[in-house]
């Protein structure tokens, strides 16, 4: 691997000394006694499990916290040798720019041009200079053609590039990236990381990346800082050292080890046990669907066998979620057949259909309808007139299975991200469904949550439930799935076993899919980037 050596002589840019931060009381702080230094022209990566306060740090560094929230801070932060409290309002934000995680909520204007102008107006740049600077920065992020476009019509990856462009206009000394690729598809996120690498070379900025999955950033990272569950720093090293000497500490904290260092992946992946493909649960023939006269899906054929693990993949907008909604009978087809156990899905009674087909949405919160975990788990049973003791028995079983025993009477909205995800799956299992549909359930989840979830899903499959996944994660597809359907332009461009897909270079490129790590490892580093460009 081609890593830059840590430059010990580089000047310190930002210095944090015994810094603690808490939302309620400093007795039990979220960030605890942090001390670290960021150097000029250096790329530092901050890792930590979700809930460890990673994102809070970035807002403390640029002085927005603790003022913007009701929080308390102790300790000192110096930027270029000057205490951050001594900077006039708005000045520090200009030196330290942040790109945030959610592409949907970091803009305030309608068009790209206006959004960039908003930043320049904040800086009181004369109007006559603005057009020139907007063109320049759009050129730098390779988005000149989108100048007049509306931001909400752009793709996630394009939105993040615009967010980056807006921050670059500040000409910051330090660029903070707060999980900027967490909501992007794999190919867009690789493109974004390349852009960052290129910009860093040109502009010599310091970069501070906050991320729970280090893999793709490893090649450009000089140093890794790891934040523990208690809000203190448990490692601060060159990546090589952090992931070898400190690996046990990191594993214990639930940090996602980069696949290059994860020995458990060294064997060539588990081969999914083949299922007897004799019993078809659901079959789709020549299915078409239009929205506002625009064809979304055309001529789809698909079979779901009993106990099968099936993935539907493809780039954003290819129609994956629409197909899933059609399978679940949530929207009506235009033509073709969808048969569940030999009977058209439209002929099924709603209550029967919901017993047979479960659906887990991307955002678990959308599925919560009651005030306690217990009520969530018994809601369906209650509707179907089960007795109290049956409901108790069922709820207890599910709570045990999904590690929610200590939260029986908690409000679903107050659970942690991982717990919410587990609960949303558990609510679908009150009466074991024959088919369980998942819409990107692992998107934006951290390592531990993903692993837990996949274990539970795999158990279900082993017990005979068919699993259908819409996902961008080819590693999951490679590890777990027996069959994969690639959607492209509303048609099925590939169907079959995953291993048959990995050598179809042209198709992978067209559908913007990224090879799983297992396959990539065999090709030389750098070569797989050709997949994109």
């Amino acid at each position, binding site marked *: 691997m081609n890593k830059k050596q840590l430059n010990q002589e580089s000047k310190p840019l930002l210095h944090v000394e015994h810094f603690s931060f808490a939302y309620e009381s400093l007795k039990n702080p979220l960030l605890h006694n942090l001390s670290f230094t960021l150097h000029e022209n250096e790329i530092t990566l901050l890792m930590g499990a979700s809930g460890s306060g990673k994102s809070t740090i970035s807002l403390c560094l640029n002085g927005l916290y603790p003022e913007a929230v009701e929080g308390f801070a102790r300790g000192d932060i110096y930027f270029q040798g000057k205490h951050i409290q001594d900077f006039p309002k708005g000045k520090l934000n200009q030196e330290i720019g942040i790109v945030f995680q*959610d592409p949907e909520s970091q803009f*305030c204007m309608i068009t790209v041009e206006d959004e960039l102008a908003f930043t*320049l*107006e*904040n800086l009181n740049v004369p109007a006559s200079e603005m057009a020139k600077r907007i063109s320049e920065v759009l050129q730098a992020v390779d988005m000149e053609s989108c100048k007049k476009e509306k931001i909400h019509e752009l793709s996630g990856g394009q939105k993040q590039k615009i967010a980056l462009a807006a921050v670059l206009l500040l000409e910051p000394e330090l660029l903070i990236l707060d999980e900027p690729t967490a909501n992007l598809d794999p190919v867009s996120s690789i493109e974004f990381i390349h852009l960052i690498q290129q910009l860093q070379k040109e502009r010599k900025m310091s970069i501070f990346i906050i991320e729970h999955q280090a893999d793709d950033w490893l090649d450009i990272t000089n140093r890794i800082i790891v934040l523990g569950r208690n809000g203190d720093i448990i490692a601060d090293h060159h990546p090589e050292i952090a992931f070898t000497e400190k690996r046990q500490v990191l594993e214990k904290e639930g940090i996602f080890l980069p696949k290059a260092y994860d020995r458990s992946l060294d064997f060539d992946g588990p081969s999914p046990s083949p299922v007897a493909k004799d019993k078809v649960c659901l079959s789709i023939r020549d299915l078409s669907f239009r929205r506002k006269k625009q064809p979304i899906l055309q001529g789809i054929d698909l079979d779901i066998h009993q106990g099968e693990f099936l993935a539907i993949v493809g780039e954003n907008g290819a129609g994956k979620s629409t197909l899933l909604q059609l399978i679940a009978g949530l929207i009506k087809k235009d033509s073709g057949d969808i048969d569940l156990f030999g009977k058209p899905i439209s002929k099924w009674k*709603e209550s029967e259909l919901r017993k047979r087909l479960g*659906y887990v*949405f991307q955002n678990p919160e959308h599925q919560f309808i009651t005030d306690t975990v217990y009520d969530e788990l018994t809601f*369906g049973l209650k509707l179907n007139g089960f007795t109290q003791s049956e409901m108790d028995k069922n709820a207890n079983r599910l709570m045990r299975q999904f590690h929610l025993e200590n939260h029986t009477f908690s409000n679903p909205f107050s659970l942690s991200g991982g717990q919410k995800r587990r609960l949303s799956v558990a609510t679908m299992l009150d009466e074991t469904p024959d088919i369980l549909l998942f819409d990107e359930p692992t998107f934006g989840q951290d390592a531990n949550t993903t692993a837990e979830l996949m274990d539970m899903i795999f158990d279900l499959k082993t017990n005979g439930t068919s699993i259908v996944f819409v996902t961008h994660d080819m590693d999951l597809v490679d590890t777990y799935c027996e069959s994969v359907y690639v959607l492209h332009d509303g048609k099925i461009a590939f169907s079959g076993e995953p291993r048959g897909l990995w050598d179809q270079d042209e198709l992978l490129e067209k559908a913007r899919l990224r090879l799983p790590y297992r396959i990539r490892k065999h090709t030389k580093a750098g070569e797989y980037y050709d997949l994109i460009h």
Partner: protein
Amino acid sequence: MISSINPSIKAFAILVPGILLSLTFDMFTPLIYLLFVLVVTFGFSDVSFKRWMKIFAPFLLVALGFAWMTMLYTSDSFSGGRVLFEIWMFEVTTGAVMVGISLALRSLCFVALSLLFVLTTDSTKFMLSLMQQCKLPPKITYGVLAGYRFLPTFQNELQILRQAHRIRGVGRERGIRDKLNQFRRYSVPLLANGIRKSERVAIAMESKGFKGDVNRTHYHKMTVRKKDWIFLSVMIGSLFLVGFLSYCLGYLNIFGKTF
């Protein structure tokens, strides 16, 4: 073209005639002014008739409803004239019919005026103009603009929420109490997400150096030019002209007083 008129001035040019019109109780004045607004809309802007009609048509029904109700329930001071016909216990007089039709025409005038504004004004420019001409603080104008961006996502989320609840079997519940519960179920996640998102946007704006102070440069300089003043005077002036015309013809009726 109307779309190039300064939005703040345009807002005044719509508001003032609107308020003045609400004082006229005869049929003639709003009818002529409505025709005038239509001429302005289709003669001096590129609003397509089809799009305009789509929004306007439902209001035609509403206006008819207004007219009908007013006709039946006119207050005694207006319901003079001979009795035209009787329905059940209501006597409909010529006065009542006049007041009813006048109200319908007035409401159509408001709708046409509002459409003239809405269909020819860019929301961003309107906010920028409120900030630059009417000195509205940037905190408010940019706040509104940021909120405006949420509308499409909000709609989308509600749709997903409906589907997710349907999967859980929510639709199978019956009764008013359950329907009320339903409303609460939608509002909690929508509100929770809304608050989270707005917090994020606020932080993103601040981290781009937004301080909310009035001294800032403007990429789109909103100016008030001669044609804006001409537009304003034409819109208000013609109302007075129409008023004068109906006075000459003896129709004018302001707040129940004829001249």
